[in-house]
């Protein structure tokens, strides 16, 4: 960031800066063409087959709700990209930034337009990944990396839970299309799996939309550059969870669980976050907590069912996106112009930054809920919705009143105090106004807040009514947005809000000191997260020490013990222990071969010489090869012979250099080892006998024998299976061979310099 005015002009982003803006703007224009369709009460649906065998299709659905979101995302996206083009002008990694932000915007659009559950999930995860990259854009700092990772873990874990819920929902409903699912509300609500599905889906929505107790990642995500915060925390990322809850509203809402979960979680988050917002001194952090408040309020509204609450939901959704994006961008201008975001330092900026001050004032008035701004209408509707709530009206009204009054105070702290109080502290550099491209966004969004307040008809018919109809179906009862609704309870509550808010604003200095002390004493979720991660790491190293002691003998013992237990257990549980084998047809040649192999095996276990042990094993291997020859399987026999030869060579190469067996002491008689090997031998024998006792299913064998020549033009059935019928399997196998060879090669090479070659030090750090 520079102090000179002249560098504010965009320089050098060129096409990289302009293409994303053009993409976003044309998307916005494209979505505007849907406005007449939606206003007429129709919906649009586009379908492409994707994975038809799994009933996954790339289907998009445009109704009031998705269009509202799509317009907010593309519209605010355009302004944010325009803003970022100046804000990060000349940044060496601007190209990367533009790519991340554009990808994020597209993923978000996909999320809100997707009709298929799996497609929705894919877009959901794409927003998780792209937002991770955006939050971690300042990856040089530990804080940036930590915040990004935290957001990724929390929302990613939630997304996994969500996936389980979506799959369960898809199979329960028999369709993966949301537009179909939403038509079967009554059936779903009485289904036995309703509660599990609801819990899983809400877990995904609550983590994404940072509802208590998953709220802690959101303020940390402020490590991102300001344009990112403005985009992610006004209209997009964090609203994805709210969107999901609204999307499944027709199918899931109205039950006791739904009403109370959403009301309590939303209400608590709203009040808790607005109290914490007042405690912050960094303006961007303050806004982060007000975002939590907005998400809580939206969740709370979705818990209800009346026409007022639903209308309030949509109105507040639009209102919040407008003023929050504007305020974030405004803070970026302040940061850019003064070098700080500390509320205690900033002051008297109205003279140096008049346009920013103007935008801030308009946005803050909407946030405070003063007439004639659209924020006022949203607040009135929210109060009206609280009063007809199916949950507790007292609880709802109290939570709304507390949160709104605190918002009023916070609006003053964020947008009034820095500009209009006479003087501030020493700022890093002399305040100066931002450039035109950076001012367009905040001003336009703030002015829209006023325009929609004065002329609510602009959004009423086009967006709000279709969305409410989408929620409530035939019984929809969208309320009219009006500035003056007469003397009624919501108005009195508004007046109370202003009065309490004003008191809070005046007393916010001492209040903040008190909150800071209280906050220090309260449990800290962010630190809890760290302890959780540390605990996880400690557990990982503990269990690695247990499972991976680094001694080959233990590994082999464990492997064979598992084989013994798994196979032997299965034999016993399935009651499949075979009877006495049929010894008829065994010739003296077979017996001689057996005797030879058994003596080879015995020799291996009793000898002191490694070479003798090798030779003993070789006898067993060659014996197996001879068996293959006796039973006319030349291909297998050749392979066995060759592999056996190579193994002997390889092991001999290694063994020649090792001390004799006696010296290592490893080959002293061990009863446990003897027992284990006898057990494994017994179980394998039993299994082979059991296999032989069952008649062989010759269908595949016959098929391959018959078709090998006419279809694959080969008479060696074994090879035809390998290279033609089962070529994909073979390809997988040779890939494994290559990977194994490369890994072994790498291992041999890296231990080259080690003190004990090939044997890791037991106490290696």
């Amino acid at each position, binding site marked *: 960031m520079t102090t000179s005015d002249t560098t504010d002009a965009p320089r050098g982003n060129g096409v990289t800066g302009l293409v994303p803006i053009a993409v976003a703007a044309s998307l916005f224009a494209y979505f505007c063409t849907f406005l007449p369709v939606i206003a007429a009460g129709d919906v649009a649906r586009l379908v492409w087959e994707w994975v038809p065998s799994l009933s996954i299709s790339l289907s998009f659905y445009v109704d009031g709700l998705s269009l509202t979101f799509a317009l907010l995302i593309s519209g605010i996206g355009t302004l944010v990209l325009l803003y970022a083009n100046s804000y990060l002008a000349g940044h060496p990694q601007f190209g990367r930034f533009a790519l991340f932000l554009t990808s994020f915007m597209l993923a978000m659009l996909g999320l809100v337009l997707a009709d298929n559950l799996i497609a929705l999930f894919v877009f959901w995860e794409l927003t998780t990944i792209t937002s991770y990259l955006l939050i971690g854009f300042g990856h040089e700092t530990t804080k940036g990396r930590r915040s990004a990772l935290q957001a990724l873990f929390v929302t990613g874990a939630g997304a996994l839970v969500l996936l389980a819920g979506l799959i369960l929902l898809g199979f329960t409903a028999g369709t993966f299309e949301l537009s179909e699912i939403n038509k079967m509300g009554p059936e779903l609500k009485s289904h036995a799996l309703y509660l599990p599905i609801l819990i899983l889906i809400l877990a995904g929505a609550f983590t994404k939309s940072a509802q208590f107790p998953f709220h802690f990642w959101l303020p940390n995500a402020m490590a991102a550059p300001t344009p990112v915060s403005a985009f992610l925390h006004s209209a997009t990322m964090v609203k994805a969870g709210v969107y999901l809850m609204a999307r499944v509203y027709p199918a899931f809402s109205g039950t006791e669980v739904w009403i109370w979960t959403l009301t309590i979680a939303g209400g608590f988050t709203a009040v808790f976050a607005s109290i914490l917002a007042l405690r912050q001194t960094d303006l961007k952090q303050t806004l982060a907590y007000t975002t939590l408040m907005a998400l809580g309020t939206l969740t709370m509204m979705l818990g209800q069912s009346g026409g007022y609450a639903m209308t309030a939901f949509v109105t507040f959704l639009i209102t919040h996106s407008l003023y929050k994006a504007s305020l974030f961008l405004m803070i970026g201008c302040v940061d850019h112009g003064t070098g700080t975001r500390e509320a205690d330092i900033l002051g008297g900026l109205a003279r140096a930054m008049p346009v920013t001050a103007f935008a801030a004032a308009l946005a803050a008035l909407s946030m405070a809920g003063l007439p004639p701004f659209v924020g006022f209408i949203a607040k009135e509707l929210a109060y009206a919705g609280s009063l007809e709530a199916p949950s507790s009206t007292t609880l709802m009204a109290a939570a709304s009143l507390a949160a709104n009054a605190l918002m009023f105070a916070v609006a003053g702290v964020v947008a009034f105090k820095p500009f209009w109080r006479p003087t501030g502290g020493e700022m890093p550099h002399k305040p100066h106004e931002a450039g035109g491209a950076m001012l367009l966004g905040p001003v336009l969004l703030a002015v829209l807040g006023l325009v929609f307040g004065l002329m609510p008809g602009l959004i009423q018919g086009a967006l709000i009514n279709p969305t409410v109809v989408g929620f409530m179906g035939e019984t929809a009862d969208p309320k009219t947005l009006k500035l003056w609704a007469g003397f009624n309870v919501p108005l009195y509550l508004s007046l109370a809000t202003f009065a309490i808010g004003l008191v809070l604003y005046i007393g916010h200095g001492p209040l903040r000191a008190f909150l800071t002390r209280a906050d220090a004493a309260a449990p800290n979720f962010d630190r809890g997260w760290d302890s959780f991660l540390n605990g996880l790491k400690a557990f990982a190293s503990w269990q690695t020490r247990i499972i991976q002691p680094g001694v080959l003998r233990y590994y082999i013992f464990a492997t064979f013990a598992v084989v013994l237990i798994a196979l032997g257990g299965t034999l016993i549980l399935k009651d499949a222990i075979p009877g006495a084998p049929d010894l008829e047809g065994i010739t003296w040649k077979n017996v001689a071969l057996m005797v030879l192999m058994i003596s080879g095996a015995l020799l291996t276990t009793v000898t002191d010489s490694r070479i003798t042990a090798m030779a003993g094993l070789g006898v067993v291997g060659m014996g197996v090869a001879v068996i293959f020859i006796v039973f006319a399987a030349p291909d297998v026999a050749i392979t066995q012979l060759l592999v056996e030869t190579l193994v002997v060579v*390889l092991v001999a190469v290694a063994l020649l250099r090792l001390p004799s067996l006696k010296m290592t002491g490893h080959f002293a008689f061990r009863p446990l080892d003897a027992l284990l090997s006898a057990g494994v031998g017994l179980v394998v024998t039993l299994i082979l006998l059991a296999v032989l006792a069952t008649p062989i299913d010759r269908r595949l064998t016959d098929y391959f024998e018959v078709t090998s020549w006419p279809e694959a033009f080969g008479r060696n059935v074994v090879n035809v299976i390998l290279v033609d019928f089962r070529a994909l399997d073979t390809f997988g196998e040779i890939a494994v061979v290559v990977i194994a060879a490369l890994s072994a090669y790498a291992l041999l090479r890296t231990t080259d310099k080690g003190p004990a070659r090939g044997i890791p030090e037991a106490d290696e750090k």
Partner: protein
Amino acid sequence: MSSIILRVGTRYLAGLLIIFSLYMLLRGHNEPGGGFIGGLIGATAFVLYAIGCSTKEAREALRVQPQNIAMAGLGIALLAGIAAALFGDALFTGQWLFIGASETDKFDKGLPLSTVLIFDIGVYLVVFGSIIALVFAMEEEI
């Protein structure tokens, strides 16, 4: 190992083994053999060479890094499988070309060429390269 007999014998034996391994590879579709066995025999040639002479000389005789041979083999096998897509068939469907096939004798297919053979050559190279890479690395390590 410093056995003059093994040293001299290896020179001829290794060449013969390579030729034999190619023979095994090519006959594999109709008689016992194939890429897997061929690759194993080919590898023994160089393993023998490394024992009889030295790993250094064996590497020089091979000219290419064995792990590269293995990876090239994997690539060739994959290409042979993908080639089916050019003819509109599913992945790894064998494609055949018979040069001079007899009209009357259904067992006389003339000279058969196929992606299946190319796939088998890939298998041969993978086995050949992987084993040699391992043996060479172990011999040099010790």
